[in-house]
């Protein structure tokens, strides 16, 4: 039996497969398809202080192996969320990672305070890919100082036993610098990655396909970028736990993120095409590990950073159909 337990900043999760913020609402709809308590955790849609209508439609466009979305953080506001969504998750027995989003440092601090002592809360994910109204709408996650401000405010307002993860945007020149700023400000770990800024023009109307003009690109299309971000950040700070995400579709994809340095993974866009995917992925990952004779999940975390084992001297002449060139794909 493979030990799938993973520990994020001191908190134990029975397995490393989580949902991704904004791709599972608050778990209730997916609970129709599988038992959400068998997930490592449910990561809830980023919640803001007040109710938000979100943007106008069209809010999505399918792209090659990906999709764009521009939802605009539609949600009921923190109070309704606590009463209806977090309460449901707690009562259901699921582990909840609550994602929070704000327009100012103050917003984030107040959100963290509202979460204090709530049953069911395992961890906070701080979505900093939001425009900062106090800085001409500049996205927090694009600036180390702004990111640091948010994270230190959230950390200060959160009990020590609840890990605070900063969720970073890949749309930056140096993701390691942002990661370091968040960790220095008190983040216990990092979630990598949020969507890439993208755009589709509808060639029929000859105008942007989304009402919001640009949107966030997600899905397998971005997986190589996500794996690179996890790799770079783990390389720079091997002791900081990472929650990896971006285009995970199979157990082998999940393993890729673990090998790059993630301690757990979120499954996002894939759920739209395959609502039972998180359970399938968990099963496939377990199989991948046992196929490799790996008894404990934590033994593969960051493994790809270690030099390849000095393996048995190469067989000079294995005749078959698995040529050496295959190492490359």
């Amino acid at each position, binding site marked *: 039996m493979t030990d799938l337990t993973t520990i994020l900043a001191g908190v134990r999760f029975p397995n490393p497969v989580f949902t991704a913020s904004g*791709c599972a*609402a608050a778990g209730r709809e997916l609970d129709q398809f599988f038992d959400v308590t068998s997930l490592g955790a449910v990561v809830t849609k980023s919640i803001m202080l007040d109710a938000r*209508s979100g*943007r106008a439609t069209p*809010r999505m466009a399918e792209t090659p192996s990906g999709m764009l*979305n521009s*939802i605009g953080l*539609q949600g009921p506001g923190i109070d309704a969320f606590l009463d209806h969504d977090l309460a449901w998750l707690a009562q259901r027995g699921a582990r909840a990672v609550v994602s929070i989003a704000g327009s100012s440092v103050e917003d984030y601090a107040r959100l963290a305070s509202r979460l204090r002592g709530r049953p069911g809360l395992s961890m906070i994910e701080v979505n900093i890919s939001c425009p900062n109204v106090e800085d001409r709408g500049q996205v927090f996650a694009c600036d180390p100082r702004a990111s640091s401000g948010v994270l230190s405010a959230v950390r200060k307002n959160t009990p020590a036993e609840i890990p605070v993860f900063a969720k970073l945007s890949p749309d930056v020149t140096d993701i390691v610098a942002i990661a370091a700023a968040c960790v220095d400000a008190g983040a216990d770990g990092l979630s990598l990655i949020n969507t890439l800024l993208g755009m589709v023009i509808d060639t029929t109307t000859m105008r942007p396909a989304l009402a919001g003009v640009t949107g966030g690109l997600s899905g397998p299309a971005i997986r190589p970028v996500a794996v690179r971000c996890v790799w770079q950040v783990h390389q720079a700070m091997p002791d900081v736990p990472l929650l990896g995400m971006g285009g995970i579709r199979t157990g082998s994809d999940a393993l890729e993120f673990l090998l790059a340095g993630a301690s757990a993974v979120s499954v996002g866009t894939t759920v*739209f*095409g395959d609502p039972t995917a998180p359970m399938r992925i968990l099963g496939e990952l377990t199989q991948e590990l046992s196929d490799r004779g790996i008894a404990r999940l934590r033994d593969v975390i960051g493994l790809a950073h270690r030099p390849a084992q000095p393996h048995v001297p190469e067989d000079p002449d294995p005749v078959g159909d698995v040529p050496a060139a295959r190492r490359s794909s």
Partner: protein
Amino acid sequence: MPLQVSGEVLSVRRVGAYQLLTVIAPGIPELTRPGHFLAVQVGGPESSMLLRRAFAIYDVKDRGVYGGTVEFVFAVHGKGTAWLSSRRPQDRLDVVGPLGTPFRLPTTPVQAALVGGGYGSAPLLPLAGALRGRGCRVDIVLGAGSADRLFGQLDAKRTAASLVVTTDDGSTGQRGRVSDVLPEVLEKNRTDVVYACGPMPMLRAVAQQCAERGIPCQVAVEESMACGIGVCMTCVLPVLGSDGRTRMVRSCVEGPVFLAERVRWEDIGTVPADTVGAPVRP
């Protein structure tokens, strides 16, 4: 409680300009009510298309030789429906359903009018059967661009007390739109309730005609959907709640069937300023 089923394609048949696809999907028929829809995976395992396509459920058979089949009617529109149209018997198809909120049925025998545009007739035909089962009189109005885009005319003729057909080009039935003939149908039959499914501009016109006459109307809308199961928030439209406040409501869960008078038809594609949580405009 929707199911995800990897079923076998039984047949794909041309019907006029449309395709009628039958798939074996045990468990789904029993749960289906008229107005429910399916979300269908397209493109195969290494496809670049990640999202399911939504189709109204047309016919279901609970039992029979294959242990439950589901049928839907579709127009080839883009890449996903092109792929669907090239399915052959025995290919596998992954479907999720039944999804959404179906048509609500009257509890007493009333006079019902059903208005379908193009393939929008697909969910109305089983609805007609269900209404008849409750002792309702059913009048049907079907419209389309041209004769080949009318679906289920024969079926409708059999089920309905009366059938009126319109086409934009006059290739069959009356030349014109369903809204050209609907007022007369409503008056002649003293219609108590209207059900409509079709393109959004048609639904809007029908909704308005019903509102003017105080006739309750249910419409099945069609918005772009990424997930179809309520987790992504892409499929919203502005709808008035019972508290009189407008919210951006998910058409995949709270719809696709809505009470027509609740939908803010003029504001679709926008966030009306009085929506709950609307951005504060300076």
